[in-house]
């Protein structure tokens, strides 16, 4: 390995292995056998060839901000640190594309394209540190999903390396390209189980002229859900429609000192972007709808700074919640937009039933909820109840026509729910696809399509 990537590119000491044994997923942990840091596609191809020949697991990794255990080396092997592929190769203002290495930090990508008056809409909560390669591998979402979609809607082309060491390309700069199977889309969201992505070409939009933020407070969750429904039915698609439940609001307020009210059940944070007049008109109409549909208070942010502060508070929700109890488990259940209130109420009922504390926030416009459980990993009995509660939450989401993950991916954490979502036929086909890419099963084993699911318990490698 050192012959391929040099001595500095290979980490084997106990501290290094321990430091790469986790990602942002709580409780799960397992040591790799080695951490390898390639700098070029050629080095990477050699590493994969070697690993494939010896059937050594390979786990590609960016900044490790993922929340479903996708980068935990659960069967040991090589953690492939991709952070040195951090170049922005080209911002093509004629074709409206950007071509980057997978190790570029998402926020840096935003900054670079925005400096050219362009816009890359996907904005996962972890954008300050997550890598774009990780976003693509997990098909990350964010707060602008309602109007702009998620990562898969912006990937036009990629270069990737198969476990055999073969370097291939799919797609390119063409907005229209229907030649053959869509391998680009297949690799987006493949969670490192098929190949390693080494370069990405992404679609850009013109940067919206202006944006404005509106806050709506509701006494009941159903009022908030109805406001979301009526807004869309009125043919307005806001860029962002986020909600926080009461418990989340309290914690966020303690962290951000915004002076949020303590006695309302939910808060909606709505942002619209676009041409100034259009934005002003949309925000006015949404405010009218909100008042008519029973909002107790509606506030329009007066300045862009005020709006940005509110959005920043929403972004901090997860980490702020983690102040309450030692362990914070964030989930990612999603339902069709119209079932949002039913789902939030179900989460409350389930939390009561299993006597666990769950705060919920998320993307109201997308029906994408993040029920977040505040618990203590040292208490095995409580963790079991948490496990049962989440099982019932996912069952309920599926019954409501929803899905088990909206933007975090399956990874390890949602392995056991995938067959329920895609069916036995779907599982078999996915496994056959994996075999076609990765006949020796070295790519990120134990994830997504793996057969045996694990409980949420600490996994220690010897």
């Amino acid at each position, binding site marked *: 390995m050192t012959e391929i990537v040099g001595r500095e590119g290979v*980490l084997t*000491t*106990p*501290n*290094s292995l*321990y*430091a*790469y*044994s*986790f*990602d*942002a997923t*709580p409780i799960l942990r397992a040591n790799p056998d080695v951490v390898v840091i390639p700098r070029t596609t050629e080095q990477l191809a050699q590493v994969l060839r070697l690993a494939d020949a010896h059937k050594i697991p390979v786990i590609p990794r960016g*900044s*490790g*901000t993922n929340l479903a255990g996708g980068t935990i080396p659960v069967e040991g092997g090589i953690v492939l*640190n991709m*952070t*040195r592929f951090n170049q922005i190769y080209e911002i093509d203002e004629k074709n409206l594309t950007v071509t980057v290495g997978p190790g570029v*930090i998402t*926020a840096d990508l935003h900054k670079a394209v925005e400096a050219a008056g362009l816009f890359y809409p996907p904005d996962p909560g*972890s954008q*300050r*540190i*997550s890598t774009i390669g990780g976003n693509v591998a997990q098909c990350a979402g964010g707060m602008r999903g309602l109007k702009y979609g998620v990562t898969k809607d912006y990937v036009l082309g990629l270069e990737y390396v198969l476990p055999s060491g073969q370097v291939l390309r799919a797609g390119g700069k063409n907005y229209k390209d229907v030649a053959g199977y869509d391998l680009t889309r297949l690799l987006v969201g493949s969670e490192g189980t098929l190949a390693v992505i080494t370069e990405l070409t992404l679609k850009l939009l013109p940067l919206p002229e202006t944006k404005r933020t509106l806050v709506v407070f509701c006494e009941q969750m159903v009022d908030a859900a109805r406001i979301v429904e009526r807004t869309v039915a009125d043919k307005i698609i806001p860029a962002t429609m986020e909600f926080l439940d009461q418990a989340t609001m309290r914690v966020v307020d303690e*962290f951000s000192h915004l002076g949020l009210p303590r006695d309302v059940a939910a808060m909606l944070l709505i942002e619209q972007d676009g041409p100034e007049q259009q934005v002003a008109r949309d925000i006015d109409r949404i405010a009218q709808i909100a008042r008519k549909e029973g909002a107790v208070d509606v506030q329009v942010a007066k300045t862009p700074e005020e709006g940005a502060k509110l959005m920043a508070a929403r972004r*901090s929700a*997860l*980490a*702020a919640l*983690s*102040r309450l109890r*030692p*362990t*914070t488990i964030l989930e990612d259940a999603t339902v069709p937009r119209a079932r949002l209130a039913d789902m939030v109420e179900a989460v409350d009922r389930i939390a009561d039933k299993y006597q666990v504390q769950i705060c919920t926030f998320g993307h109201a416009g997308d029906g994408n909820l993040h029920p977040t459980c505040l618990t*203590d*990993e040292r208490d095995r009995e409580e963790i079991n109840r948490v496990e049962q509660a989440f099982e019932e939450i996912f069952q309920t989401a599926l019954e409501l026509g929803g899905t088990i993950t909206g933007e975090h991916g399956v990874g390890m954490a949602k392995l056991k729910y995938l067959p329920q979502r895609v069916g036995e036929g779907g599982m078999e086909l996915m496994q056959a696809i994996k075999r076609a890419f990765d006949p020796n099963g070295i790519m990120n084993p134990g994830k997504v399509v793996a057969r045996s699911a694990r409980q949420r318990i600490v996994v*220690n490698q010897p």
Partner: protein
Amino acid sequence: MSSFDMNELLNCMHCGFCLPSCPTFQQTGLETYSPRGRIALMKGVAEGTLPVDAEFEQNMYACLGCRACETACPAGVQYGALIEDARELIEDRKKARKRTSFARSATLKHLFMHPQRIRWGGHVLWAMQASGLQKFAEQTGLMKVLPREMAQMQAAVDTVASPAKRKRRQEVVGPDSTSRRRKELDAPAANRKPAMRVGTFTGCIMDVMFYDTNQATARLLAKAGCTVVFARHQVCCGALHAHSGEKADAMELAKQNIVAFEQADVELIVNNAGGCGAALKEYAHWFKDDPDWADRSRQFVSKMRDISELLAELPPLSFTKPVEARVTYQDSCHLAHGQGVRNQPRELIRSIPGVDYVELQNADSCCGSAGIYNITNYDMSMRILDEKMQQVANTKANLVVTTNPGCLLQMKKGILDAGLSERVQAVHIVDLLNQAL
């Protein structure tokens, strides 16, 4: 032996928000050089999976202790306290094995614990500088007897004050006759409030290397209408000891300081070094479980102010001498991240007539000085400094203002190395303000 606070370790949810704020992670891109990684390693030690060995020690001491991660952490993890615990654990283990390095004990034990020796050191340094002996030593290569890191740093040291000058210091400086407060004091007895008595924390290194800055601090406060007291028997604040895992020594020094300022009978205490200030404000936390000292340390902390903080509370000084320069400001990590003082120094600088203020990009990111880090981890420190100097050059500023002796020395060294001496100078905020009075 100390142990980790498991609740505090578990507060870290490894979200990774701290990574972009960490200078050593920015330099290496490695998880072991990040706050998240270091906390994970502490967890490994706490649960018995990892030993307290040379690798763990290297990883814990690679941290600058700048605490920028605390500002970035939405979960509110007290990283500064955790890294101190980790280092204390390492030092305790080493003592058990009787393996403390000579250089380390020479500085921490035999120098910083004894104010008299620090003063003698200052006299010796002055004598060398005054006699040209330092130049001679440099030219003949005599400096090579010093470790490379120390020899490199000494180039940035200015001429220190002479023993004679030191002897002339007045222990108590009354309010300045031209100050507004003074005029109020001279008003009819019925309206009269006594001048506020403010003790100055002179700091050990600060008083040797930047004696004039301490004098200038007193002058500023006198101008603001205060009676300034140089409290006797004060000693080193203990920050270096606490950050190096010598908490017991740090607490010993803290007790002496608390007593010294109780005896000085002052309403407030002011310091002009961000790093010392953060430690002085932590005394209450250090003694929270000590019934004899908890209350006294709380009293002490409630009086403690950074000079910028205090000047912002007092009636504004009127600066009359313009400073025609483009000026930028490098935060002291422990002033910004440790004490949350960010705006006051900037406002003070802006209030000087003639100043063209320009914000430094990533001003609150550590310059690499970090106590004795630029001696113990010289190479990493210089990588961080090179980047900082690039940003300083981008501002096209003529003056870089700092609020901590370590940062000031580091800036001076960076300016020398970057070949910017012709047009850029580093200056302590107090000296700049004093120049404009």
